């Protein structure tokens, strides 16, 4: 090894960094952004899962328990009626509701058992845990204080769980399988398009196309056409593999899964074309992967439920296309929703709007190619 020669390479690399501000910004900025996101998603300042509590107990325990749940640091509790709670759960505005039955106090005294019913939404395991934990803590505290006051023994918690969708029959693969279909396809198609389009720019053929009678829309539509052929095959492959080789649980229509997957691809193709405008080399394009994709993955609700993000992050989640794609896929696969379901239609509509907006943006950025 020759120190001077090796040193020349090190120096050259540092010079290249100095000329490439974008890469430097990425190297020093992205960790802060990504770790910051991680902090907020895993608890720092996050929102608690919303839970309705319905107290029907004729004895004293229900009120004490409900009050204690209200002070929980795991969940955010609203007391309400059973009908309201049920409608909240199906509208997805709460993660669960707990019914404290009429005989709660009576059974606690006679059988030493506290048996509330917990109605869970069921498609997001990350939301189930905090509810059960909070219930357990509150039961322990409430019954201890009652036991001390009234000479009761500390009863056991025996909740009965009721799942609106899914339930204990689903495993981790089932929860994440659907979301991952969307993610895998979105990620791969995005990377392939942004690289392909950048190559078109850097090798000068885009300029050549601009000097031909082609219009900008011809180029964008041409790209969509070419990539969608491959993407359609990929979507079918991914869906078939997930459902029939991995046996991921599916409640809904397979064609809808393929449709949603294809819509995600359409978004990915145009996001790729659009973002390629902001890169001048393939190297820089690759940098868009951590910056454009990782936050979307973290914020899309695949792993961390959108409902438990801090409020301002929820706003960010709601303007990312992947969030709606993932939600739509879960609607179909876990809840068995079809085209008559409002929330699914909203998801599909939003993804379509994103696709159209990105097509327009991709077409508009091509204009700037002429100097």
């Amino acid at each position, binding site marked *: 090894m020759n120190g001077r020669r090796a040193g020349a390479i090190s120096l050259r690399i540092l010079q290249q960094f100095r000329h490439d501000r974008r890469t430097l910004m990425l190297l020093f900025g992205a960790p802060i952004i990504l770790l910051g996101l991680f902090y907020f998603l895993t608890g720092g300042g996050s929102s608690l899962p919303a839970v309705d509590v319905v107290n029907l107990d004729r004895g004293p325990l229900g009120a004490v328990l409900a009050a204690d749940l209200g002070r929980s640091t795991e969940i955010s509790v609203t007391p309400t009626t059973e009908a309201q709670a049920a409608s909240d759960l199906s509208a997805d505005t709460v993660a669960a509701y707990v019914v404290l039955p009429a005989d709660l106090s009576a059974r606690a005294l006679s059988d030493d058992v506290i048996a509330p019913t917990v109605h869970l939404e069921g498609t997001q395991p990350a939301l189930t845990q905090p509810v059960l934990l909070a219930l357990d803590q509150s039961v322990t505290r409430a019954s201890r204080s009652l036991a001390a006051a009234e000479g009761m023994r500390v009863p056991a918690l025996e909740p009965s769980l009721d799942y609106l969708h899914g339930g204990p029959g689903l495993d981790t693969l089932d929860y994440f399988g659907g979301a991952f279909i969307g993610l895998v396809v979105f990620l791969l198609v995005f990377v392939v398009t942004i690289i392909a389009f950048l190559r078109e720019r850097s*090798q*000068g*053929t885009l*300029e050549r196309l601009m*000097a*031909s*009678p082609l219009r900008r829309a011809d180029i964008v539509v041409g790209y969509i056409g070419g990539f969608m052929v491959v993407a359609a095959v990929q979507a079918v492959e991914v869906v078939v593999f997930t459902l029939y080789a991995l046996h991921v649980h599916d409640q809904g229509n397979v064609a809808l899964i393929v449709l949603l997957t294809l819509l995600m691809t359409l978004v990915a193709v145009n996001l790729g074309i659009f973002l390629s405008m902001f890169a001048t080399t393939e190297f820089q394009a690759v940098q868009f992967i951590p910056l454009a994709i990782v936050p979307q993955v973290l914020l899309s609700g695949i792993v961390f439920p959108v409902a438990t993000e801090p409020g301002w992050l929820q706003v960010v989640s709601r303007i990312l296309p992947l969030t709606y794609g993932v939600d739509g896929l879960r609607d179909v696969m876990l809840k068995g929703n079809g085209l008559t379901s409002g929330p699914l239609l909203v998801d599909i509509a939003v993804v379509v709007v994103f696709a159209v907006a990105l097509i327009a943006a991709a077409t508009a950025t091509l204009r700037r190619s*002429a100097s």
Partner: protein
Amino acid sequence: MIRAQPVAVSVEGLTKAYGTIRALDGVSLTVGAGEIYGLLGPNGAGKTTLIRSLVGLVNPDAGTVTVLGRRLPDRTVLAEVGYMPQAPALYADLTVEENVRFFASVHDLDRRTGAQSAVDALELVDLTSRRRSVVATLSGGMRQRVSLACALVHRPRLLLLDEPTVGVDPQLRAELWQRFTTMSGEGTTIIVSSHVMDEAERCGRLGLVRFGRMLAEGTSAELRRLAGVERLEDAFLVLSESKS
């Protein structure tokens, strides 16, 4: 005699600055149909910028460009223009023939016509035997020739060639110029940039460009007489001295 022909390209007062660099500084020029017009000038003179302006790739700061009777910007005229960029812009992962046929179709040739025209264009640049080679595996001069084939496959009425013979060996270079002359005889207008003086001798008319300005125009003989020298190269030096 040249002015009697219909005008193919007319440029007036074209100006384009990139920051403080004046790439074009009030260039005017008229090229008649069927002419071979040579743009002569050193590196950085503005030849590429001028040629790119003729296909709408440059947004001028001032001045007008009229191509085949249509005032730019106007994309419809581009179907009749062939543009060969200075660096061969090709799809390196496609074969020679796939590249040429692609550029045939983006210039509105249908499949059958495109296929036949691609055969003819490859014949012209002497690459028929390599038509199935992937472009990435070709030598620099060969790529230059593929790029030329892509520019003329749709038989444009106006052919813009930015230093087309760089890296092409002398024999093929002579053959290519033979073809250019034939095409010009058939009515194709050719604007070709070069900094090679012996090529310039083959052009009908020349424009000497420097610092984004048109220093002088005329046939090689006219320019040499104007400068009072024997060789075109010297004429170029004398004329750029006197104007700058």
